[in-house]
């Protein structure tokens, strides 16, 4: 994924996941991540919005202005088919990565 570190890659994967079921705006994505992942996953806005821009530029999500149920205007992001495919592959990579890390951490002296 784009971004230099694992964190950025992970963040974008999470955002894609958040958009799996319905379009959301940036504030909503943040709330969704916290509600599902707990306070640990509170994302800094300074990381979230650039991540969203990158996802748009790379063609994984679409963007459009719309109104929230409360009548506020907000920019909604929608997952696109390429983004869905990307999510799948990133999730698989993440799982492989964590299994490997787990295996190392649980290693007994040889």
């Amino acid at each position: 994924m784009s971004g230099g570190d694992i964190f950025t890659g992970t963040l974008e994967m999470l955002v894609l996941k958040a958009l799996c079921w319905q379009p959301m705006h940036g504030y909503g994505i943040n709330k969704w991540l916290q509600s599902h992942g707990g306070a640990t996953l509170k994302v800094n806005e300074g990381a979230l919005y650039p991540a969203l821009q990158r996802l748009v530029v790379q063609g994984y999500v679409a963007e459009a202005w719309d109104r929230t149920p409360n009548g506020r205007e907000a920019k909604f992001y929608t997952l696109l088919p390429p983004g869905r495919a990307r999510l799948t592959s990133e999730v698989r990579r993440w799982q492989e990565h964590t299994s490997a890390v787990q295996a190392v951490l649980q290693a007994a002296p040889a």
Partner: protein
Amino acid sequence: MTPEQPLPAAIEPDRHGRLQWYPWHRHAIRTEVERELRSHLLLHVDDLRAQGMSAEDAEAHARQQFEQYAATLTHCQEIRMSAAGKARRGTLWHEFRQDVRFALRTLARRPGHAALLIGTLAIGVGSSAVVLQTLDTAVLSVFPFRRPAELVVVEPMGPVSQSKQMLELLRRRSTDFTAIAGYSQWGFTLTGDGHPEEVDGGRATANLFELLGLEAQLGRTFAEGEDQPGNDAVAVISHGLWLRRFGADSSVVSRTMEIDGRPHQVIGVLPAATTFPTQKTEVWIPATIEPADADDYSTNYLTLVGRLGPDATIASAEAGVNRALEGMVVDGIIPSLNPADPPPSLTPLRTWLLGRIRPTLLLLFGAACAILGLACANVANLLHVQTRSRAQELAIRAALGAGRGRLVRQLVTESLVLAAAAAVVSVGLAAALSGALVLALAEAVVPSNAAVLGSITIGWIIAVSLLIGLGLGLYRSRWVESELSILHLRSGSSGQVVGWRRALSIIAITQVTVAVVLMIGAALMVQSHRRLVGEDPGFRAEGVLSFSVAPPSARYSTDEQQAAYHKAVLEQLLAIPGVTVAGAVHLMPLSGNNWNPTLHIEGAPLPEGASREVDWRSASPGYFETMGVGLIRGRMFDESDHASGMPVAVVTEALARRDFPGSDPIGKRVRTGFEPEGQYVTIVGVVADMKEFTLAGPGRPAIYRPLGQMPISTMAMMVRTSQSPDALSDAVREAVWRVDPEVPISNPRPFESVVRHAAAPQRRFGTLLGVAGALALVIALVGVYGMVSYVADQRSREYALRKAFGATGRDISLAIMQWAVTLAAAGVLAGLVAAALATRMLGTYLYGIAPLDLATFAGVGAVMVLAASLASVRPAWRVARADPAHLLRA
């Protein structure tokens, strides 16, 4: 917080649901990102207020929670801008490739037309490149001197060579120079290692090379003091000589050469392509002056070269030299200065060495650029019709939303493709022709690698082609704009079209005029050459081999020695199998050398103020027979004509006719200034006329004295053979060296090539003018073709109306051709007038044909008119064939 804004307007999302930004949307991007971040804050505030916070607290809290608001804004902007940049570049590249493909397809659809366009451009670019290439190698580069701007040739008393004493005096008395050196050009005889040969070389003061900044590639150049007697047995040789005579031996620096009979040690080899002062300068020895040689004019013919000091200018240095001269008068060193003598003059070394050729080349370059301009005008014109129909299509696309910039880019790309093709062809043309130009300017100082295209020339071709492509493209896009406005205003032909047509007519007529002038010049030159070479020269050149021998004066100082030597050589030559007859004469025929004293006839003194000049030659028995010149009366030279025999002479018919009209010259006594004082010679024979001195004009009055009675040291030998003359070269050399192996012999050449060389200026001019004329003709014809196409297209509506009213296609095309021929005739007329004025400049080169030769003028004029009418056939036919209804609807 600011009130809410309406939904977006300017930028629509693309089919991916993505807002398509371009780099110029910087402000819009910023606004968009700001808007999004602000909406984030608003949503946060809503939540907080829903939890019970007050409005102000909620705002403050929300802001505080959003760390680094400004930085996030910038970061998001950067991401978008970078993506926008990439998108833009991608689109540009994609569109460029599209345009190139389209351009190539368009050209391929009409290959003849494409060839015409590319060819015309290539002629223009190529001819300017050729001249530039020669300029580059002859004038701009190949000057291996240190800081050449400081080098000047010093002529203290006008264009006269100076003595070494003068050099010393100027050195001491003039403060404007950091150094002064001198050199003279001289021919040397090399003997010793290898065959004797004669080479061009120079004598130089010891500081010459150091002053010029010329360093040896091997060994060294002269050191101080080596031009003093006793130290001067050294020599510096050229790269060419090193290769030829020493086989590029790296130990050449210790070897010795015999120069004019004296040994010199080779101390250094100059770098290749050092063309100072000429290409052919091969060896340098110090310019020594020995007390006994004070009269030796070889050291008194120095050209002085000075290096200007840091504060000196040419003007100040000239004044300084003047002052020095005056000082010398005051000190009694030189006699008074004659006010009628030319004043001291300093010329930059570069100008002095290349002076003759630079103006010619610059003129040629100007002419070539003019041709380039005309070629561009032609191409623009040819593209005109094409552009106009494209313009409609492009204007419609513009109206439908394609950016104007996009269309301009397309037209420019198409023109660049055309220009690139022309550039490629130009490179080929330039490479092929620049060698020819060098040959044509053969007498100039042009190094032999001039045919390889240099970086300046390639750069010129690329730059000019780029400019042409851009210019053409931009010019054509102007038409798009004018078509746009026409669409809007629905007007017909605007005023600018008429103005353009007038300009085009003038251009086309000018091209025809120029072509006519050049073609007439070429025709006159070619005819001159043919007449020069075609007339009976009085001798028979086929089968004759010619060369010179130069027995060194050291060993052949007396008349008897010289006469004996030449007699021995002729005997050896006659012994060669295949040689039928051989003879010698002291000046090589057609070499441009002549001795022509006044003839005195015994008993018929010259009236006051009259002149009676004759060409004087010393010739051996067998000379006339070798040249194939017949005897008219009396006898030719034979063995009895030796030193103690009666002094005799043989004269030509022309002399007999001029000086002894109606009477028999045999037995008459005459003399010239070359005969010893008071001695008259008796005419014993009259031979047929021969064009011995020059091919131009009839045979001249000439008098010949026998070699045995008037020996000259250097003689030209002519050998007639029944085989091919070339085959005898080696045998001839061996024969000469059998008599004395130390006597140099010039390169044996078939006399036919000498004759051809004598007609060289005419041939060269003829070739140059011919090529220029051919180019100008092509351009003029293209111009006419383009002109007619354009006007026919402009007037297509009118023609369509005429057709609708019953005119046939033939009527139309005849009308068009008539107009084209009128145009061409105007150009031809102007051309004839201009040529009448210009051919006078050909002056002395014309032979046997008048500058205003009626047949030539009429012939060229007729050809031009015919060619122009042929050029107009196709466009006329095209319009005539077109369906009138279609034309009217367009």
